C-alpha cells in the first residue's frame, strides 16, 4: 500500500500537488508523464529526498506526516537514479559491499546478482573504467543488495544502449515479482512492457492511477496524445513459420481469437506477447481487401471516434475483447460513412513486438 498527499513548492513558485492511494502488492507501478510534469519530484518526495508538506504512508508505516519523518536511511528502499552514481574511489565489488554492510539477511548476494546481470568479470574493475550500461547494472545490483521493501527507479534505462535495455527490462520485471517497483519512464515501450499499474502525472498533479490498458483508452486523459500513436494488444504465440520468418499470434481473451502474422527472426521466447500497433499503420475497409499483399486483416467494430486538429480522425476499434486505434483522414471517414457501431475490417501493415 502506498498512500501520499504531497504539496511541494519550489522557489520559483512552481508548485506540485500529488495525491494518490494505490495497492502495491508486487509488480511494477510506472510514473508516466511529460517532462516537467513532476515525475522526478514525486519520486524524490516519496523517497524522502525533498522536503514538502503532506503525508506519505507505505504498507502501514508512517513515512512522513506533520508529526513524523522517517529518515531515508531507515526506510528500507532501494533507489536507482538516471545516472548510476557509483562511488568513483572504489572498485565494483567495494561499491557493492557498501550496500551489503548495512543489511542483515538478504535474499540477494553479490555473486548471484553479478551472474544474473553479467558483470562477474568486472568485480575488480574501477568503476570509472566501465561503460554506462555496465555502471547502471551495478547500480541496480547495489540497490537490490540493501534488501529493499520497495525499489524506486528514476528513468534508469533512459541513457542506455539497446543491448543493455534488453538485459535489464526482463530483469526488472522478474525482480518486481518479489519486490514492488516504482519506475519512472517516458518510453511507451518500457511502460507497456513493465507496468502492472501506472500513475499518470500531468501539470504537477496525479491525473489518474490504474492499469495502462485502461488509461490508454480514456481519451479525456493527457495520455491520449501518446495513445493515439498506438495501442498494445495482448496476444498468444501460436506458431513460428521459419521459412517465412513469421510468427502467427492469436488475440487473447477469446477461445478462438483472431490471428495476426508478425515478422520475427526467431521463435518467440514466451508464449504471452505484447504487440503495439501504430494508429497510422491501420487501414480501414468495409469489405475484406482481397488480392493484396496485406497479411493481417481483423474484423472490428467502431466504438468511438474523435477528430484531431489536422483533419484526421482517430477511431477506437474493438477487436475481439481488445482495442486498437486507427488514424484515418476526415475525407475517408466521411466516404465510408462510419459511425459508432460500424462493422469494419482493419488491415494492419506493420507492428512491433514489445517483449
Amino acid at each position, binding site marked *: 500500500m502506498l498512500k501520499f498527499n504531497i504539496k511541494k513548492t519550489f522557489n520559483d513558485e512552481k508548485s506540485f500537488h500529488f495525491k494518490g492511494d494505490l495497492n502495491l502488492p508486487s509488480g511494477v507501478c510506472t510514473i508516466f508523464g511529460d517532462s516537467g510534469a513532476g515525475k522526478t519530484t514525486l519520486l524524490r518526495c516519496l*523517497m524522502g*529526498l525533498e522536503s514538502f508538506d503532506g503525508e506519505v504512508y507505505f504498507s502501514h508505516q508512517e513515512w512522513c506526516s506533520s508529526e513524523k519523518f522517517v*529518515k*531515508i*536511511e531507515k526506510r528500507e*528502499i*532501494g*533507489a536507482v*537514479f538516471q*545516472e548510476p*552514481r557509483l*562511488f*568513483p*574511489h572504489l572498485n565494483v565489488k567495494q561499491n557493492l559491499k*557498501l*550496500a551489503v554492510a*548495512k*543489511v542483515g539477511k538478504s535474499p540477494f548476494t553479490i555473486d548471484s546478482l553479478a551472474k544474473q546481470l553479467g558483470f562477474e568479470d568486472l568485480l575488480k574493475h574501477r568503476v*570509472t573504467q566501465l561503460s554506462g550500461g555496465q555502471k547502471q547494472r551495478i547500480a541496480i545490483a*547495489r*540497490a537490490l543488495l*540493501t534488501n529493499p521493501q520497495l525499489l524506486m527507479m528514476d528513468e534508469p534505462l533512459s541513457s542506455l544502449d539497446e543491448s543493455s535495455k534488453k538485459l535489464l527490462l526482463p530483469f526488472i520485471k522478474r525482480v518486481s515479482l518479489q519486490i514492488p517497483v516504482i519506475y519512472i519512464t517516458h518510453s511507451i515501450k518500457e511502460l507497456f512492457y513493465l507496468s502492472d499499474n501506472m500513475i499518470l502525472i500531468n501539470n504537477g498533479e496525479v491525473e489518474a492511477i490504474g492499469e495502462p490498458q485502461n488509461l490508454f483508452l480514456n481519451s479525456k486523459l493527457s495520455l491520449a496524445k501518446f495513445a493515439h500513436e498506438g495501442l498494445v494488444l495482448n496476444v498468444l504465440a501460436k506458431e513460428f513459420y521459419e521459412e517465412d520468418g513469421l510468427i502467427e499470434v492469436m488475440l487473447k481473451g477469446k477461445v478462438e481469437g483472431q490471428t495476426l502474422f508478425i515478422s520475427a527472426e526467431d521463435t518467440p521466447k514466451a508464449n504471452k506477447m505484447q504487440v503495439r500497433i501504430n494508429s497510422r499503420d491501420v487501414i480501414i475497409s468495409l469489405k475484406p481487401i482481397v488480392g493484396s499483399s496485406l497479411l493481417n486483416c481483423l474484423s472490428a467494430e467502431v466504438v468511438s471516434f474523435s477528430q484531431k486538429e489536422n483533419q484526421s480522425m482517430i477511431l477506437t476499434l474493438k477487436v475481439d475483447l481488445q482495442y486498437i486505434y486507427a488514424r484515418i483522414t476526415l475525407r475517408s471517414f466521411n466516404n465510408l460513412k462510419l459511425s459508432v457501431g460500424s462493422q469494419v475490417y482493419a488491415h494492419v501493415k506493420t507492428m512491433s513486438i514489445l517483449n
Partner: protein
Amino acid sequence: MLNAGDYQAIWLTLKLAGLTTLFLMLLAPPLAWWLSRSQAKVRPFIEAMVALPLVLPPTVLGFYLLIAFSPDHFLGQWWLELNGSALAFSFEGLVIASIIYSLPFAVQPLQSAFLHLDKSYLEVSATLGYGRFERLYRIIFPMLLPSFIIAAALSFAHTIGEFGVVLMIGGNIPGETQVLSILLFDHVESLQYMQAHKLSFILLAFSMSVLVIIYGFLQKRQQRVLNA
C-alpha cells in the same frame, strides 16, 4: 655534521608539526563541512577568522596569543589551574598557536572539496542506509582522500616553516620551544654560517619535496577527472 642541538631542534619541529597536523585533521573537517554548507549569518565572520593567519603578520598573531597565554588572562589562567604550568613559552603553547596559524591551510582545501561534492553521492549513501555522520566518514571522506592528504601535507609543511609566531610566544628554549627556523636565526645571529647553511638546506629540500608531492598528486587527480 649536525650537532646535538640541531637534531634536538629537528625532532622538536617534527613533533610540533605532527601534533599540529593531527589536531587539525580532527578539527578542520567538521569546520570545513559547516563552512561549505551553512547559510548562517555568522558564516562570513567565522570564515574570515579562519583565513586571518593568511594575511595577518605572524608577529601580530603571536603578540595577541602571548597576551592570551599570560596567566593574567582567561586562557592562560585556566591552563595554569588545569596543568600547574604556564602556557606561554611552553611546547603546548606552541601547538595551540600552530593550530591557529595553520588552520586555513587545513580548512581551505577541504572546504573547496566539500563545496564541489556532488550532492547525489550523499543521497545515494542515504538510500544505502547510512546515517548523517556515517555517510561522511564511511563514504564521502574516503572518496575525498586526496583533498585530505593535501590539507594534511600543507598543514605539516606550513607548521615546519613557522617563524614569527614561535618567535613571539616560544622564547627560544632548547628542547622545549626552539624549533628549526628559530635555531637557524640563532646561528645567523652568532655568525655560524656553516650551520645556518645546513639547516636552511634541510628546510628548503623538505619544503620543495612536499610541494612536488602535492602537485604530483593534483596532476594525477586532474588526469583522472579529464579522462573520466
